[in-house]
C-alpha cells in the first residue's frame, strides 16, 4: 500500500508542477483568439532576434502586444506560409529572402502594403514585386572568406575569383556548406550559376570538387570546425561565409585576421510583409513600419549580422572598419530562381556526390 501512496503523491506533485508550467505558458496573453485586435503575431525564422528594448519600444509606440513565433529556416518559413495561406498562423512575416520571395508572392501569401521606405531602401525591392507585397529590411552578402594569416605564413597569394578556387594552388583548401541543406550554401551555388550560366556551372562544380573542395551540412560546421580561424582550429583557410564575417575575427591590434573576397559574393535580401487574411492587418503594418525605422535598422548588424537597408543608419565601429560590402555582387532574377530551384538542386546533388 505504501507504493500506492507514493504513486499518488508523485502524480499529485506532477500535476501541481504541470499546472504551473502550462499556465506559465499562457500568462503573457499568448493564447489564441478573443482579443485579436490587441496583439500582433510575427511569424519568422529561427535566426530572428529583436532585443527586449526594441520589443518594448514597438509595443509602447503602437499599443499592440508583440508575439514572436520563430522556427525553421527561410525555406521552411516560406513553405509553411504557403501551406497555411487559407488560415495564416500570424499577422506579419519577417525573413522571406530574395531566393524564396517570388514563391511567396505567386502563392498569394501576402497582402500588399506600400510602407514608407528610408533612403536607399527602394534599391532592394524584389524585382517583379509590383504590388508591394514585400518590404526590404536588411541585406548581406554571402562571400568566400580567406584566412589572411595562413596565406601570409605559407607565402601563397590569396585567391581572388571563383575560378581561382579550382586552381591547383588551392587544392584541399576550400570548405563550403551544401546548397541543399544551408541557405548560404544555396547562395554560393546561385553565385556560380550567375557567373557560369545555366549550362556552365555544372562543369565549374565538377572542377571545384576535383580540386578537393569539402562540403558540410551547415555554415557552423564549415566555419567552426574546418576553417583555420574558426572555434575548432580546422585545416582549411578558405571558407564560404558572409561579407560581415571579418568583423568577428578582429585581432585586438587594430586589424582582422580574415577577409571576404568581394568578387565572389551573392547578395541576399530579407523582406517583411503583411500576411493575407491576417487577424490584425493594422498591427502587422505598424510592425513592418517599425522594422524599417531607424532604431530597428541600426540594431540589425549586432542582432542578425546583416546590413540595414537604410543608407543613413550608423554601423558599429568594427563593421565600419572591417565589414566591406561588394560594389557589384552576383544576383539572379527571383522568377528564374523560383522556376529552376528544384532542377538546380538536383543537378548540384548529382555533380557533388559523384
Amino acid at each position, binding site marked *: *500500500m*505504501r*507504493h500506492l501512496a*507514493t*504513486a499518488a503523491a508523485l502524480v499529485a506533485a*506532477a500535476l501541481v*508542477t*504541470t499546472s504551473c*508550467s*502550462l499556465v*506559465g*505558458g499562457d500568462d503573457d496573453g*499568448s493564447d*489564441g*483568439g478573443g482579443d485579436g485586435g490587441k496583439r500582433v503575431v510575427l511569424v519568422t525564422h*529561427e*535566426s530572428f*532576434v529583436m*532585443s527586449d528594448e526594441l520589443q518594448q519600444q514597438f509595443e509602447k509606440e503602437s499599443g499592440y502586444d508583440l508575439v*514572436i*513565433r*520563430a*522556427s*525553421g529556416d527561410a*525555406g*521552411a518559413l516560406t*513553405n*509553411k506560409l*504557403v*501551406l497555411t495561406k487559407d*488560415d495564416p*498562423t500570424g499577422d506579419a512575416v519577417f525573413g522571406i529572402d530574395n531566393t524564396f520571395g517570388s*514563391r511567396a508572392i505567386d502563392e498569394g501569401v501576402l497582402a500588399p502594403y506600400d510602407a514608407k521606405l528610408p533612403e536607399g531602401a527602394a534599391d532592394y525591392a524584389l524585382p517583379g514585386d509590383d504590388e508591394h507585397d514585400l518590404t526590404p529590411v536588411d541585406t548581406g552578402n554571402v562571400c568566400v572568406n580567406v584566412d589572411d594569416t595562413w596565406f601570409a605564413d605559407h607565402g601563397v597569394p590569396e585567391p581572388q575569383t571563383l575560378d581561382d578556387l579550382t586552381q591547383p594552388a588551392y587544392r584541399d583548401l576550400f570548405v563550403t556548406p551544401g546548397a*541543399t*541543406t544551408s541557405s548560404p550554401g544555396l547562395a554560393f551555388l546561385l553565385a556560380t550559376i550567375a557567373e557560369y550560366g545555366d549550362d556552365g556551372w555544372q562543369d565549374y562544380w565538377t572542377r571545384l570538387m576535383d580540386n578537393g573542395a*569539402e562540403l*558540410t*551540412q*551547415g*555554415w*557552423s*560546421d564549415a566555419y*567552426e*570546425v*574546418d576553417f583555420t580561424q*574558426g*572555434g*575548432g*582550429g*580546422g585545416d582549411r583557410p578558405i571558407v564560404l*561565409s558572409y561579407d560581415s564575417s571579418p568583423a*568577428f575575427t578582429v585581432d585586438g591590434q587594430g586589424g582582422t585576421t580574415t577577409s571576404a573576397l568581394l568578387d565572389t559574393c551573392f547578395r541576399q535580401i530579407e523582406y517583411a510583409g503583411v500576411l493575407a487574411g491576417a487577424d490584425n492587418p493594422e498591427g502587422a503594418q505598424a510592425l513592418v513600419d517599425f522594422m524599417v525605422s531607424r532604431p530597428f535598422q541600426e*540594431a540589425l548588424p*549586432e*542582432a542578425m*549580422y546583416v546590413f540595414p537597408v537604410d543608407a543613413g543608419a550608423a554601423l558599429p565601429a568594427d563593421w565600419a572598419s572591417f565589414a566591406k560590402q561588394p560594389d557589384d555582387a552576383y544576383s539572379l532574377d527571383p522568377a528564374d530562381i523560383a522556376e529552376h530551384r528544384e532542377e538546380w*538542386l538536383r543537378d548540384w*546533388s548529382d555533380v*557533388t*556526390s559523384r
Partner: protein
Amino acid sequence: MTARRLLTLAGLALGPVLVLAVFFVLPVSGMVGRGFVVDGRFDPGGVVEVLGRPRTHRVLWFTVWSAGLATLASVLLGLPAAYVLYRLSFPGRLVLRALLLVPFVLPTVVVGVAFRLLINDSGPLGPLGLDGTPVAIIAGLTFFNVAVVIRAVGIAWESLDPRPGEAAAALGASPAQVFRTVTLPALRPALVGAASVVFLFCATSFGVVLTLGGLRYSSVETEIYLLTTQLLDLPAAAALSILQLLAITALLLLVGRLRASPDPTVERRTARPRRPRRPDVVPVALTVLVLALVAAPILTLVVGSLRADDAWTLANYQRLTTVGDGNALLVPVTDALVISLRTAVDATWMALLLGGLISVVVSRRSLTGGERRLRGALDGFFMLPLGVSAVTLGFGFLITLDRPPLSLRDSPLLVPVAQALVALPLVVRTLVPVLTGIDDRQRQAAASLGAGPLRAFATVDLPLVWRPLVAAAGFAFAVSLGEFGATSFLARDEHPTLPVVIYQLIGRPGGENFGMALSASVVLAATTAIVVLVVDRFGGRSLGTV
C-alpha cells in the same frame, strides 16, 4: 465475463488511442493527403512516379543498411554494458548509468560538431580518415543510441531470476552455454524491443547522416526534409512518408514474432548484484570501450566549453545568463533551461500516463487468437510516431489542427504532447516485458481473496512494476530534454527549449557564441545526468521495501 473484460480493456485503451489519432494520425494523413492532390484534383500519378525513381530506391537502401548496422553495433556493445552496469556491484555504477544516458539528449548539431572536431583531418583521430564516411555515420548513430539498449536490457536483466542459470551451471553448463540457452531467451523480449526502437531512431535520424556523411549520403529522412522545407514537392514527400510507414509496419510485424514472451508462470526472484569475478573480464572490457566511445565526444565538448581566447576560463558559463554576443538570442540560456525542465515534466507525466495504460492493455493474457492479434496491433500502433519524419508531423500539425474543435495549432500543449509521443514507445517497451512476466494466477489469487481490480493491481503489479516505471520516467524525461526535431518546428512564441537555443547559438558568427553553445550543451548534459541519477536512486530505494 469475456465481454466485460474486453470492455474494460477497450475503456483503458480509448484515451491513448484518441490522443494518437488527433496528434499523429490526423496530421500525418493530412500531409500525405496533400501529396495526392494536384491542382485541386486527386492525382496519385506524382506519388507513383517518385516511388519508381532510382534515387528513391538508393535512398531507401542506404537508410535500411546504415540503420541496421548501427542497431547491430548498439546491441553488441550494449549487451555487455547492460550486464556490467546492472548485474555487477561496484562503486559508481549509478553514476556511470546516468552518464551513459547523456548522449541520448545532446542535440545532434552539437554532437556533430564534437565528432567532427575529433575525426576531421586536423583532429586527434584524423589519421583514421573517417570524416565523411559511412563508418562515421554508424559510429555517430551508435553513440546516440547505445544507451537505449543498455537501459532497457539492463532493467530486464536486473529483475531476472538467477536460479535457472545456476541450476544449468550446476548441471555442468559452461558460462557461454548458460548465457545462450537460459539468459538470452529470457532477455529476448527486452532485447528485441530495444533493438526495434533503436532501429527506428537510426532510420529517422537527420543531423548525424548529413553532418558526419559530408552530404554524400541521403536517407529517407533527409530527403523528406529537403522535399518539404526547401522544394515544397509534396507528392514526392508523400511517397517517401508512405515508404516509411510501410517499412515500419513490416519491421513491427517481424518484431512481434520475435518478441514472444517467456513463460510467466516461472517464479521470479531478483538477484542481488555481485562483485565482479575473473570471467567478467570480457564484458568489463567491452563496457570500457563503450564508455570511451561515449566519453570522447563529450570530453571534446567539455574542453571546448572551458576555453576562450586560448586560455582556460569559466567565461562561457558566466555568459549563459545573457542573451549572447550582440543579443544572439531572444531569451537567456538559463531561461531556456527552465522552459525545458517544465516542458519535460509535462511530457513525462503524459508519456507515463498514456504508456502505462497501453502497457496494461497490451500485456494482459489474451483468451483468443483474435484478441491477441488486436493487442499486437495496438502495441505496434504506438510505435509508429518513432518511425515517421518530424518534418511531416510538424507541417501536418499546422495544416490539420487549425480549426475548432481542434484549433490546437498554437496551444502550449503541443510541444510536450509531441515529445510525449516520442517517449511513449520507450515507456511501453520498458514496462511491457515486466508486466507480461507477471503470473496472472497471482492476480486471480488476489481476486479470490476479495481484492477488486484496483487493489489487485496495487498489491500484485505495482510492486514489481515500480522500478521499471521509475526507469521509464527517467527515460521519458531525458527524451523530452533532448528532443529537437519536432520541437524545432513547434517551439512557440518566446518559449524556446534548450536544444533549440543551442542550435541558434552555434549558427551564429563570433567565438563567444560558439563557446556559449558548447557550455550550454554541457549544462544540458549535466542536468540530464543529475535527473537520471536522482530517479535511479529513488527507484532503487523503493524496491528495497518490497
